[in-house]
């Protein structure tokens, strides 16, 4: 008999009832989405992992009081978003203090691959460099967005959550969320203008071809 995959809420209720294995399943299910969301929020891999671990710890701590009043993902990403926003505020204060003493460059990691891997994976190094500079530009454009807009874009684009859910996560109305997203995309299309122009041509060619 095939075992039906338990829903997130069911798993969390099992954790509440003392089932440690269900916690492991939640960890497996949400480890990667959380780390990636937080990485794109704070732009530092180590910090993102620390925050994601803190999210899981908070989920575990809250297990006994857990009531499935909202979707599990809404609850989970609300914890993650709040942690990320707080951490970004703290880091900003720290950076402001440090920059008074010494002009330290705090550029976030721009490449996700180590230089050693590059040659193996990309025989065509030129093409890789072009791709990497595109990615760098995209990352920087996202980084320039105000924090709440950034969170909205990331949750909307990568987590496959509906507007109602994202609005609950960001604790705003659905129309406020739509306005956040609209403003974010307006900024992105300006910041990424050269890439957007290329992409538009590419997409319209694709449309004509199909």
């Amino acid at each position, binding site marked *: 008999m095939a075992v039906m995959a338990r829903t997130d809420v069911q798993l969390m209720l099992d954790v509440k009832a003392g089932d440690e294995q269900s916690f492991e399943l939640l960890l497996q299910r949400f480890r990667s989405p959380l780390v990636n969301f937080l990485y794109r929020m704070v732009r530092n891999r180590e910090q993102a992992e620390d925050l994601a671990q803190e999210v899981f710890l908070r989920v575990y701590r809250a297990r006994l009081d857990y009531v499935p009043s909202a979707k599990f993902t809404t609850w989970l990403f609300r914890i993650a978003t709040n942690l990320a926003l707080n951490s970004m505020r703290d880091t900003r204060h720290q950076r402001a203090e440090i920059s008074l003493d010494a002009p330290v460059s705090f550029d976030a990691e721009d490449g996700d691959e180590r230089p050693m891997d590059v040659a193996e994976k990309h025989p065509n190094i030129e093409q890789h460099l072009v791709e990497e500079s595109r*990615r760098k530009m995209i990352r920087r454009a996202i980084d320039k967005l105000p924090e709440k807009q950034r969170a909205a874009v990331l949750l909307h684009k990568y987590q496959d959550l509906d507007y109602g859910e994202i609005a609950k996560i960001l604790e705003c109305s659905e129309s406020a969320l739509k306005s956040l*997203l609209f403003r974010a*995309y307006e900024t992105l299309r300006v910041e990424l203008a050269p890439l957007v122009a290329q992409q538009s041509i590419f997409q319209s060619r694709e449309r004509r071809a199909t």
Partner: protein
Amino acid sequence: MSCERMEGRILEYVDGRLKEGDRAEVQKHLESCAVCQLRVQQFSAVAGLLDELPMIEPSPAFDARVYALVAAEPVTKSWWTWNFASPRIVLAGAMLLVATVWVTMHPANTIQVDSPDFAVLENYDVISNFEPLTELPQPVQPEDTNSNQQM
């Protein structure tokens, strides 16, 4: 539809998340508005660019670190599960409750203190007079000891 009203729907249109009726309305506006048409084109280009960012893999030690954090948590149980785990505590609590209710419902029946004049204190003189005790007959000397002395 006005361009202002498009603002709230344009991204949903690009995502393909609009309902059929709204979608038709947006399309009708796009046919006559070059500005919104360009925006739709550029928004979908931005969405395409965002797709280019690669996912990162959490480090291999990630789970172990989460388990370590969880293991370091003090064992806390909710009041309710704690009671379920020890029925003796529940029984003791219930008995205490019954006793409390009993005492509060029958306060006067057990001890009645109507006046401070205790009957015992009225006869205090009699008790403090030890004279009758001296009138008690002398203890009888055992005969055996007397005969021993005479010997």
